[in-house]
């Protein structure tokens, strides 16, 4: 007998609730033709949780390695219970996860873990960001300096900045490749710039003033305004060298 309209939604909601909660029995309407209903329902529960945890492991290999799989999975389970993303595009779970990690206090004892995870989320953002062709120094060569200062630099759509009180760039780099270094000084503050000018994501450690300079450029300031702000923050700031470095990184895609 088919029931009236609310039935399908109730069936799905009950099913989902029993997957989310390991201690909850399968809904009463779930049945099997033969065998044990709990074992069979458990296939779904297992599929869901293995897939979810695999996805987060894949998005945050460094954060996961730093705390160990068991702890990372425990934190990940809490995330899904408290703030499971509805978006079926898994790589886009990275930012919501980091925001939750930060806000939930789940790793309050290890604030650097949030920052490392934020670096990994920025890496993923860059990896999947739109394509754009960087410009080189030649694109600026014919422009008079005073005209150049009035222009705005268009930054690469993949570009991101992450600042931390910990050495997140060093920590992250130590976990790339085969040989993970176990003696790193993780206590120096570091800011990283992440950009993907072509196929590969580049992670570069930058000074705080350089990060502020890039952030100001990204906030639609003219080159002159951004330089002025940087010099005010740090009189030793070298505009020519920093601009050349940004161009070398492939972080600039145009001039407005």
């Amino acid at each position, binding site marked *: 007998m088919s029931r009236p309209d609310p039935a*399908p939604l109730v*069936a799905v909601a009950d099913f989902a609730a029993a*997957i989310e909660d390991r201690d909850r029995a399968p809904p009463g309407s779930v049945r099997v033709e033969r065998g044990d209903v709990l074992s069979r329902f458990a*296939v779904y529960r297992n599929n869901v949780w293995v897939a979810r945890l695999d996805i987060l492991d894949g998005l945050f290999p460094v954060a996961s390695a730093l705390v160990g799989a068991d702890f990372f999975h425990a934190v990940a389970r809490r995330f899904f219970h408290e703030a499971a*993303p509805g978006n079926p595009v898994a790589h886009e779970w990275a930012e919501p996860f980091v925001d939750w990690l930060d806000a939930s206090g789940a790793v309050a004892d290890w604030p650097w873990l949030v920052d490392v995870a934020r670096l990994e989320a920025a890496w993923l953002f860059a990896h999947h960001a739109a394509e754009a062709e960087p410009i080189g120094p030649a694109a600026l060569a014919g422009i008079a300096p005073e005209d150049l200062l009035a222009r705005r630099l268009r930054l690469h759509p993949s570009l991101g900045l992450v600042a931390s009180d910990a050495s997140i760039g060093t920590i992250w780099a130590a976990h790339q490749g085969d040989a993970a270094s176990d003696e790193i000084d993780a206590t120096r503050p570091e800011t990283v710039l992440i950009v993907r000018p072509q196929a590969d994501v580049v992670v570069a450690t930058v000074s705080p003033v350089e990060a502020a300079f890039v952030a100001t450029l990204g906030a639609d300031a003219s080159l002159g305004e951004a330089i002025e702000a940087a010099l005010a923050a740090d009189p030793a700031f070298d505009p020519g060298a920093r601009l050349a470095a940004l161009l070398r990184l492939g972080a600039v895609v145009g001039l407005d």
Partner: protein
Amino acid sequence: MTILPALPRRAGVGFKPEHFDAIVASHPDLGFFEIHAENYMGAGGPPHRRLAAIRADHALSIHGVGLSIGHPGPLDAGHLDRLAALVDRYEPESFSEHLAWSSHGGHLADLLPLPLTEATLAIVIDHVDAVQSRLKRRMLLENPSTYVRFSESTIPETEFLGAVIAATGCGLLLDVANVMVSAVNHGFDPRAYVAALPLAHVGEIHLAGRFETVDAAGLPLFVDAHDRPVPDDVWALYAEVIARIGPTPTLIEWDADLPPFKGLLAEARRAEAILASHREARHVAA
């Protein structure tokens, strides 16, 4: 609805980034590649660079795993828009999705079963209509592998699929491996199940490996794991299906514990041999 070029009636494989270099180096003679739509919903980057290179040389099937067509709530319009953008970008020969749901508030990253009733039939028909209207093309709907059923179900799965196909004009993605998994799990005759499907509407076939275990009652429990070669009983049923409906685009699905590319290719060759024998048989008969 626009009639688009169909997949070649040959064997294809799922495209995995791990195999990209081997594919580029070997230019395999395959009917098509299939991708999971949700892995290509970023704007750019290596995923799209690789896919564009694959697409330039091969027919393409886009297989959605996150649209949640079987959920009774409204379809995720934003997700459908992204799917439409992906379909516009790559103009695949085929788009397919599942008779299943995968999100309820939070995304559950699995293909979950629904009660098969008049109420859910009306919902699935609405959803398939909405997908086909938005994508401006016919889609294929895949028969699920399932581990449990619902006491409120009143419509046999084959009849349910047939009704959706009749009402929407969509095609059937016949997953032969799913048929065998469900047949063992629920104890039905896989051949009777296949015979009850609207076989004239099959647009693609899926074949995959499975994990075989037993439940707490000691009875066989097959899990649709896509993590090993296609088992012999699936090959046998596949050959019977091809004998009956003729050569049909056939995908080797292998999503976990990936073999080297040549391992995947060997499975595709096996499907290709079955397809070729029936291509010749039909030619002689004609």
